[in-house]
């Protein structure tokens, strides 16, 4: 997955799963403070990534994901 593909994927994912308006989904947007997600949303998001791409996310990786850019960086690294 490239960064561009990752961003497109995340835009569609956040709009569908969390009903976040498109204009709010920027690379710098913070998941909790800017997009209004909570810890349950974050766990659900990671769970869906794990199921969809057959990957595992460890605690350290989970804690490091705080912005949209971090989510994309993680996906690009985890998904060949």
């Amino acid at each position, binding site marked *: 997955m490239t960064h561009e593909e990752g961003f497109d994927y995340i835009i569609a994912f956040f709009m569908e799963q*969390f*009903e976040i*308006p498109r204009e709010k989904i920027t690379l710098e947007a913070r998941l*909790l403070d800017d997009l209004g997600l*909570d*810890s*349950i949303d974050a*766990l*659900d998001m*990671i*769970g869906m990534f794990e*199921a969809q791409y057959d990957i595992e996310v460890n605690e350290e990786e989970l804690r490091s994901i705080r912005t949209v850019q971090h989510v994309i960086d993680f996906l690009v690294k985890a998904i060949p």
Partner: protein
Amino acid sequence: MQESWFHLSDFRYEPPDRIEADATVPDDSLFFSGHFPKMPVVPGIAMVAMVERTLNRHASRSGLDRSITGLRRVRFRSLIESGSSFHLIIAPHRLNPELDFTFEVIHRDKKACDGVIRFCSERHASPLQDEPPDNRKPLDVAIEDCIPHRDRMKVIDSLLEIGEEHCVTRADVNERWPLVDSGATSSVVLIEVAAQTASSLISWKRRYKEETGGRGFLVGVKLAKWSHSRIPVGTRLFTHVKVIMQRDNYLVFASKVISPPGLSAEIQFQAFRPNDGDYLIPR
């Protein structure tokens, strides 16, 4: 009858689209006879039912033929003690203002519960697949050994099947069920039916699989939809629950409630099993 569960007051409609009301769950509410013994806390379904009744009152006053046919992205954000008062704020959802409403249930200036509720004609309810009745004999397991709910908040009657990641229960709707009024209860109660089925599974895993984690608390409803907004007394319900995700003490369940023929519901909900008894969704 329903007034014994909670009180709704000061209903007001602020055109063009904002609805507000106040609600109280008094200390002697019927919810607290069994939710839970020695630990009376307001059930999640109580807060959703307050929103439902507020919208029903709005529909009645406005001459609308509408009822609750589903929910999504609901959070129960804290444990609320008995005798608490709430302020409800309901407004059309930006994505689908004709059918969906966002709601917030405020307690002591903080959100206790929030989410999106579908409020439309039952003609627009999601069609769900009919299934045949389950004629299996119940397992020889006392429900009281599996769930902490008692008295009028104990809604499941027996276990039909239980395994590593799934559970099937049976329940007969009777006059003593939560929110029964005029011979039927609200389909919001199906959330409680599904949650108690999941609670049975958690208890079983703890007892026989030696899993860690304490009692599970309902922290959210990811998605729920049902075919009918009311369930008549005398209806027999079969509830299938399975774990679809688990990460440490956080679990997501998928459930299907069926009552052949005709009534059915699908509910995905989230539970948390705190080790230390603490319960709060941090932002």
